[in-house]
């Protein structure tokens, strides 16, 4: 309005030309002369905006808006996001909803350990493996290696199609050319028809695969040999010598009150560690009948670290321990078996020089005698594969029979193991026949025998005599390169199959993805070949491998299971696919009668030699090295030494000090003509005359990840014509000047007298359940924040946690945690969201060990939240500490201020480094973090979000246990419990209230939402001085407890 009046006024003066009237006052000479330009200048002088109000519609007020908008637009260059497309299915499969996961039951078996699976698939591809809760063996839990199957499915280095190696006479060259399966079938069929065929496989506990192998061998007269690299043939053979029937018994840890293990790592690697850990952790709940474990060990194994009492022995003394216990039991009134009496006498005479503490053995024998029928003695695994492995098994069986355990804690017929059915003897005879030229064609299934067999097996020379070597495996590894044909079998997630881990317990294996490459499973291969030969009825009837599996199940398995009895096959099949497992009920609960012990043994105690003994053993993350190319497992900190990406030669601290050997010095191991080099790792708890090394590392040809990780220890074993010796070999160690960088995620192993992973004794616990915990007086002047909806919390029971680290891999699989590689772990940049801290206590020669899984504690007064300058980490209304990745700038002050050091930073853009198909294993529910962003455990917030939404949609309160975090779900020991504190009935609320519960670093008043339950140890030490080799410096556990608490009398700043 204003300006228009102004203009009007202006026009009047302009109408009279200035010249005639002659202004009374003039500002400048030009105005006086009425210079033509003056009018126009007057015009603009008072007009605030150069755009007049009326003609093109811009009012003065709009001027600011337009100028601002155009200015801003000019500066921000019209930031419209690039056009994105959205492509629906043409014909949508009905079971797939984008973003929603489907779960399929399946089974996993890696040649040694097996489990029932629930495979989480998303849009047609598996992204995570979880345990099948209905499978009786693993009850929903999974070991670290089981999770790795997903990454081995998407492994970029596995073969993508059959290959034909143009091999010359002595198989020395290695050019290989890719071919088609049809071409390979044609050529192989002619060869098969010529006869003289042998098939070597790992142990195959799969009914349908055994059936097809049966048909195949009948069709072509094929000789089938099973062989396991980590063989337990000595246990089966020991059973046959003791009771007449070779069987791999099932140990009932749920019934065992007192367990004596002689180099048997049943919590880490022996037979079925997940099942044993499940049973073991239930019996460890503190109370009167808490079970007890005594270990006599030459290696420092996971089981040894969980023992109440651990005695370090030389492998050659394993038999002495067994006989010592047998003699003591005999003196207590047990009947000494006739076949062992004479050897027992020899051992009792030579007991003095074995270096074992007689008083400790007396107490162990007393305990065993008291717990007759509910105790268990076991020995097995590579560490017991000495020259006298059979004798050891017989004596251990004798102990179990004498103690009445046979049939009770040693189940020998109701549900025995079908795994480890390989036999080295039969492989030895086969190799001789191959060398003698009796075998024309050898088919090897997924067993890299060139690496797995020691040199003295003669395999390398023997295969030169072969006309044809066919290798069915996913890698062109050492054996693959020498074979004429390499036929990739793909992953178990791509093919049908089944599993009978224990007799009578059958589970199905479903494919969860279309085969990614041109691969055929072993079953499909054999089916195709057998169809061309003289096929059995079942082979003729089944068009595809699925038909054959269905036929096997309907003819052989359905009638033996409760699920299948009296039902049409199709109904049974559908229900089987949903539950995943079928068995006849009550099979696993039955105990049976004791068998008659008929074992005979004649052996003399080994002389006392001051020479170093080498013990080879398997570790739980690598086993025989089949998964060496999976980054998760290579970077998983070893449960014992926390070393990543490498194996090592472990030596005792005393020996190292004496030889002046430091961590990482390369040691040359020589024994006769065998020579090998490996870096030294100082491992507390080893006998001074023992050095140990893990097999499964340093395998060639598996792929880029496995390329130079570790040292091949198989060559240090001796095939010994069918009775392989992995332990007890006499070696000389010589320190060389070289060094090798061994990287571990924990470089300090002692708690420095700080109350972190707390422990108490059974006696102290019975008096006061809160013993061992020093409560700190913590107060706050602020009222506690009230959580109306949920109040998430977690407890970790340190008494049941065995430190197996399965949770670390499960967490990485669920939350897209990156693997960074050896160099960056050395620089302290590993990304695991949960780490298992392992501390040694007491005398370093033979320490006690405690574990503590540490993840983000989601503190109430979180020190990280106050210092983040951009509010990237704040507390939410459900008690969680939210980490908003997109808001994080990366100052890293939160990581500095976190006393638990659980925050992980993306130093580089690791996402870009992930090779191509591996990215298919990402979980789309969890943001994949880019470079420069902090990340940490979020209590699996995506699972919380999904479950609470479901509960809200169904208009019902959330049930306790409906949300399971990935670590809780996979934990074989059920040590982790997650839940809502606002729900007073929830397990976690009850555990929070337990007197055994304490918070880590309570004195800092962070009010963490994670509470630990103290570990209770059977510490009625047998006596002051006991067979810990040099006595236990810290004496009884109670004294040790006082020692840790006294440092805390002072107040706190």
């Amino acid at each position, binding site marked *: 309005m204003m300006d228009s009046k102004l203009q009007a006024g202006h026009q009047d003066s302009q109408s009279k030309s200035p010249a005639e009237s002659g202004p009374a006052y003039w500002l400048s000479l030009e105005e006086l002369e009425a210079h033509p330009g003056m009018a126009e200048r007057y015009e603009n002088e008072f007009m605030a905006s150069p755009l007049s109000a009326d003609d093109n519609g811009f009012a003065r007020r709009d001027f600011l808006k337009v100028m601002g908008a155009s200015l801003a637009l000019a500066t921000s260059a019209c930031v419209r996001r690039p056009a994105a497309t959205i492509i629906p299915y043409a014909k949508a499969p009905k079971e797939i909803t984008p973003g929603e996961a489907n779960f399929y039951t399946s089974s996993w078996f890696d040649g040694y350990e097996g489990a029932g699976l629930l495979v989480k698939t998303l849009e047609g591809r598996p992204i995570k493996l979880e345990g099948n809760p209905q499978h009786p063996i693993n009850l929903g839990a999974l070991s670290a290696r089981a999770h790795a199957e997903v990454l081995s499915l998407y492994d970029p280095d596995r073969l993508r199609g059959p290959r034909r190696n143009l091999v010359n006479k002595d198989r020395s060259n290695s050019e290989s050319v890719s071919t088609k399966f049809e071409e390979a079938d044609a050529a192989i069929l002619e060869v098969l028809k010529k006869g003289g065929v042998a098939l070597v496989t790992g142990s195959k506990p799969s009914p349908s695969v055994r059936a097809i192998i049966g048909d195949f061998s009948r069709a072509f007269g094929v000789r089938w040999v099973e062989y396991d690299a980590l063989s337990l043939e000595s246990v089966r053979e020991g059973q046959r010598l003791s009771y007449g029937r070779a069987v791999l018994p099932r140990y009932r840890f749920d019934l065992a009150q007192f367990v004596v293990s002689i180099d048997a790592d049943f919590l880490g690697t022996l037979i079925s560690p997940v099942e044993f850990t499940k049973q073991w952790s239930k019996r460890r709940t503190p109370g009167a009948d808490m079970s007890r474990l005594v270990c006599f060990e030459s290696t420092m194994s996971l089981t040894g670290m969980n023992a109440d009492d651990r005695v370090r022995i030389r492998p050659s003394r394993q038999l002495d321990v067994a006989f010592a216990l047998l003699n003591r039991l005999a003196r207590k009134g047990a009947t000494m078996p006739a076949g062992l009496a004479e050897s027992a006498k020899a051992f009792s005479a030579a007991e003095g020089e074995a270096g074992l503490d007689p008083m400790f053995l007396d107490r162990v024998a007393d305990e065993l005698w008291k717990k007759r029928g509910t105790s268990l003695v076991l020995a097995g695994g590579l560490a017991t594969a000495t020259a006298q492995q059979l004798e050891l098994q017989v004596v251990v069986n004798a102990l179990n029979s004498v103690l009445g355990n046979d049939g009770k804690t040693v189940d020998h017929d109701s549900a025995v193991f079908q795994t480890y059915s390989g036999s080295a003897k039969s492989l030895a005879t086969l190799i001789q026949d191959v060398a003698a030229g009796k075998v024309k064609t050898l088919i090897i299934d997924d067993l890299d025998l060139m690496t797995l067999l020691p040199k003295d097996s003669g395999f390398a020379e023997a295969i030169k005599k072969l006309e044809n070597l066919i290798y069915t495996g996913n890698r062109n590894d050492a054996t693959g390169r020498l074979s004429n044909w390499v036929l990739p079998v793909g992953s178990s997630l791509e093919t049908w199959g089944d599993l009978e881990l224990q007799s009578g317990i059958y589970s199905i294996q479903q494919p969860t993805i279309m085969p990614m490459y041109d691969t055929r499973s072993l079953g499909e291969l054999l089916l195709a070949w057998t169809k061309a030969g003289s096929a059995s009825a079942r082979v003729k009837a089944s068009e595809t491998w699925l038909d054959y599996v269905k036929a096997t199940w309907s003819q052989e398995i359905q009638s033996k299971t409760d699920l299948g009895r009296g039902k049409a096959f199709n109904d049974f099949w559908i229900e089987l696919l949903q539950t995943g497992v079928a068995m006849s009920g009550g099979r696993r609960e039955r105990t049976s009668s004791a068998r008659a012990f008929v074992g005979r043994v004649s052996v003399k105690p080994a002389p006392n030699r001051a020479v170093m003994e080498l013990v080879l053993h398997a570790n739980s993350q690598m086993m025989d090295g089949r998964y060496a190319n999976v980054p998760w497992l290579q970077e998983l900190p070893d449960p014992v030494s926390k070393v990543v990406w490498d194996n090592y030669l472990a030596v005792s601290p005393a020996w190292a000090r004496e030889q002046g050997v430091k961590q990482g010095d390369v040691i040359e191991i020589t024994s006769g003509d065998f020579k090998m080099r490996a870096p030294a790792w100082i491992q507390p708890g080893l006998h001074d005359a023992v050095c140990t090394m893990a097999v499964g590392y340093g395998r060639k040809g598996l792929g880029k990840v496995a390329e130079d990780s570790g040292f091949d220890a198989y060559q240090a074993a001796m095939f010994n014509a069918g009775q392989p010796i992995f332990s007890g070999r006499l070696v000389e160690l010589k320190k060389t000047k070289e060094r090798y960088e061994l990287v571990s995620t*924990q*470089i*300090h*192993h*002692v*708690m*420095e*007298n*700080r109350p*972190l992973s707390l422990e108490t004794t059974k006696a102290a616990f019975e008096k006061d359940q809160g013993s061992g915990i020093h409560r700190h007086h913590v107060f706050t002047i602020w009222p506690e924040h009230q959580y109306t909806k949920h109040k998430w919390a977690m407890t970790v029971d340190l008494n049941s946690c065995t430190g197996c680290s399965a949770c670390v891999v499960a967490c990485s699989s669920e939350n897209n945690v990156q693997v960074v590689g050896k160099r*960056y772990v*050395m*620089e*302290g*940049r*590993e990304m695991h969201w949960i*780490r298992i*801290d*392992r*501390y040694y206590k007491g005398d370093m020669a033979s320490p006690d060990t405690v574990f*503590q899984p*540490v993840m983000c504690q989601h503190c109430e007064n979180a*020190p990280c939240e*106050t*210092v*983040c*300058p*951009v*509010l990237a980490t704040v507390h939410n209304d459900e008690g969680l500490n939210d980490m908003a990745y997109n*808001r*994080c*700038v*990366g*100052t*890293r*002050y939160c*990581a*500095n*201020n976190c*006393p*638990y*050091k659980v*925050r992980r*930073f*993306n*130093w*580089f853009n690791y996402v870009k480094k992930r090779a191509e198909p591996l990215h298919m294993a990402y979980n789309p529910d969890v943001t994949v973090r880019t*470079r*420069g*962003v902090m990340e940490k455990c979020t209590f699996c917030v995506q699972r919380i979000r999904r479950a609470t939404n479901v509960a809200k949609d169904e208009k019902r309160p959330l049930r306790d246990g409906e949300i399971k975090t990935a670590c809780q779900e996979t934990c074989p020991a059920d040590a982790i419990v997650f839940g809502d504190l606002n729900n007073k009935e929830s397990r976690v609320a009850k555990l929070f209230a337990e007197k055994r519960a304490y918070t*880590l*670093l309570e004195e*800092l008043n962070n009010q963490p939402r994670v509470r630990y339950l103290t570990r209770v140890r059977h510490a009625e030490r047998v006596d002051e001085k006991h067979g810990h080799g040099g006595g236990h410096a810290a004496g009884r556990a109670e004294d040790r407890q006082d020692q840790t608490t006294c*440092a*805390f*009398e*002072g*107040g*706190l*700043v």
Partner: protein
Amino acid sequence: MSEASMNMASEVARKPLILGNKTYKDISDDICEPVEAAPGKRWLALLLSAKGLFLFYLIHIAIVVSTGMGLLGVNSPIAWGTMIITFVFWIGIGHAGTLISAILFLFRQKWRTSVARSAEAMTVFAVMTAGIFPLIHTGRPWLDFWLLPYPNQRGPLWVNFRSPLLWDVFAVSTYATVSSVFWYVGLVPDFATLRDRAKTKIRRLIYGALSMGWRGSARDWAHYEMVYLILAGLSTPLVLSVHTIVSFDFAVSQLPGWHTTIFPPYFVAGAIFSGFGMVVTLLTLVRIGFPKFKDYITIDHMEVMNKIIMATGLMVGYAYGSEFFIAWYSGNPYEQYAFINRAFGPYAWSYWIMVTCNVIIPQLFWVKKFRRSIPVMFVVSIFVNIGMWFERFVITVTSLHRDFLPSSWGMYEWSWFDTAILSGSFGMFLTIFMLYLKFVPAISIAEVKPVLYVGRQRPGGH
């Protein structure tokens, strides 16, 4: 003795601040000579080498910013390393300049006039060098603008005003603006002098613009002095507050070894200590580079500064002692371990370098001869700054590398980039300082002239 000189003698005989019987004209000529004369060979050599180091620095920053923070030695548990240490180091150095030009001005310390300009310049350049670090030490430097509380459309989503890093942003930017304005206002009369003496058109144009129309009238001087006084008043609290807030980056946290209340005074004393160290280093070089300046920045000036170095060195020494005492006295095992580990742990070498350089070496200045000898003071001032860099290294790294849980203890993985960033930052500072010496009068003409006759007989007196 004339009556005037009688009361002169009764006063303490003042030492002349300006030697060599200078007249006002001599002052202008001497100080403007390096600015107006062609650049000397030595100056060019120093400038080119500093600029080379500066380019080297920029290249390495570019590599770190484009590849990732992992190139440096920082890791978990030591998430802060060279960049934060060097940031605190440079911010600390800046404080001496402000102290000289502001606080000593309010205390009417006449001797400050000849060193104030270069000290203040050192402050501005140190803050510029330090200001780079908060931006490039973050994981995603391109999002650093989130550290500023600007209105946005995310709700709006503000910054976390409780975080010491945010206080840093405010403190350092305030410090930069106030000290550069204060320095520039002091320069206006000198630019006017240069403008009037300018021979070439371009020089007159530039210095004319910079002198903002200064005509040296009484009116100008009245306003100038009032502004200078006010700015000195404003800058004084900054000397104490900025480094207090920088010390809050550590003191506000929970870490044993950081979480102590002595940090603010300890850091401020350390800052002034290292600041004077750098001033002494620079001025010894300037006096050698421009011999005429020896009459203005006399040995007495250097001696006074050396005394301040010794005093603040003792304060810092006291702080080390008090930290140990408090750790013992508190009975908190984490604190006790943190300090025992500092002195005897894997990084003990850095701790003892710090103690020797900061506490033991400055004690040389008790001896008057050393206090007044240029080579000795130069060497001592270099050691002072080495000691102060290691002090921040000790605070940051040794407390982080072993804190509460022994399982997460680790070592700092020093890499080539750490060395590059550290040495490169000196390149930046020296380049700017060399340019300053060439284009700006290194001594304040306007302030030196009024004190010409301090401690000297005014010619033609009655």
